[in-house]
């Protein structure tokens, strides 16, 4: 006879069979003191279990965070570069923060132009004693002027004047002293390299470089005496 045992009957039979049982009969009654070795092993087991369970989620979070950070940086970059005042501020900040450690490239923008008609040459009211002119080039057709001075002790300096759109001056500040200030309403950069001390003055109309193997103070005094 093929008998079918229903689930309901099985449940009733199992409850009847197992309800009153006591599986602890025959087992020792005393408490077991678990070993330290066991506890150490458990630490490893649980740590491993934690790592296995958690290892995937952080990767997902990492990727999500990375993508979000990149998206935010991209948005900020686009915004900063698109708005001229922000862009200028950004470049100023970069120059300020990294002035002592970076190779600063000063390149006049083409939007800055000589607003006055004609190329006017600056006159310098102060030239250090014992220096005399050794060379002068007035290339007014290309808006360029330079004058070189020297003394009898192999000290010399050169003044170059040109338009901002023609200027492309690299001021190396990586290993050298670098300063930024204002002289006669013109922005000024000063730096020193292995050969010369260099001072660059600029505004929207002109760029003037004064460089030579003379002290910084003398360069500044020369710059302060510049007049159109």
């Amino acid at each position, binding site marked *: *006879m*093929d*008998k*079918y*045992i*229903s*689930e*309901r*009957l*099985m*449940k*009733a*039979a*199992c*409850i*009847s*069979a*197992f*309800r009153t*049982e*006591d*599986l*602890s009969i*025959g*087992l*020792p009654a*005393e*408490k*077991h003191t*678990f*070993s330290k*070795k*066991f*506890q150490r*092993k*458990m*630490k490893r*087991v*649980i740590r491993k*279990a*934690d790592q296995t369970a958690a290892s995937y989620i952080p990767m997902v979070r990492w990727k999500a965070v990375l993508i979000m950070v990149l998206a935010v940086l991209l948005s900020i970059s686009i915004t900063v570069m698109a708005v001229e005042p922000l862009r200028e501020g950004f470049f100023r900040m970069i120059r300020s923060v990294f002035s002592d450690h970076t190779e600063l490239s000063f390149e006049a923008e083409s939007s800055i132009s000589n607003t006055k008609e004609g190329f006017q040459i600056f006159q310098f009211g102060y030239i250090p004693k014992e220096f005399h002119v050794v060379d002068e080039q007035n290339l007014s057709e290309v808006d360029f002027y330079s004058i070189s001075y020297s003394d009898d002790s192999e000290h010399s300096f050169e003044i170059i004047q040109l338009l901002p759109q023609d200027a492309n001056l690299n001021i190396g500040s990586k290993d050298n002293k670098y300063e930024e200030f204002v002289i006669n309403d013109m922005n000024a950069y000063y730096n020193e390299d292995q050969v010369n001390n260099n001072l660059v003055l600029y505004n929207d109309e002109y760029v003037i470089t004064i460089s030579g193997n003379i002290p910084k103070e003398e360069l500044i005094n020369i710059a302060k005496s510049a007049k159109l």
Partner: protein
Amino acid sequence: MLAFYLSLIDSPEARTKFENIYYSYRSVMFHSANQVLHNAHDAEDIVADSFLAVINILDAIDSTDEDKARNLMITISKNRALNFLKKKKRAVLIEEEIEMPQECDHPSPAIDNLELADALSKLIRQLPSEQQDVLRLQYYYDYSYQQISQLIGKREATIRQMSLRAKKKLRQMLEEREIQHG
């Protein structure tokens, strides 16, 4: 060690529940595993594995009935110990790919009365221990095959087979009993 277990549990209620189970039954679980393995070190490992399994289905464990909870924890640790012993002895258990009977296909004469339930309960106690354990977890504790699989560390298909084999054996025993009793 309890702190590590508790770190895996989120809610304070669940932590309290687990704490109670842990302190109440860890020793009896150890003894039941040690009775199978006769090795305290291995038995402790079994206890640890059992608690990790319990954490996974903590919500489904009724800890209010102490006897029932104690028997459950003993069943878990004992079965895990048996699994461990089989693996340790490299006993190759060839799990026969038996054809799964359709449990509700042709329910010819159903045995559905209290008298037969009582007779069946006596026959259940005559089944091999492991089959009894599966039926206990399935019908007395109302766990699914998946939950039983998690608790005693056997594959779900194996649990299903053991349950079906137990019921098949019970049918045979019932038939033999009817023949004997006319």
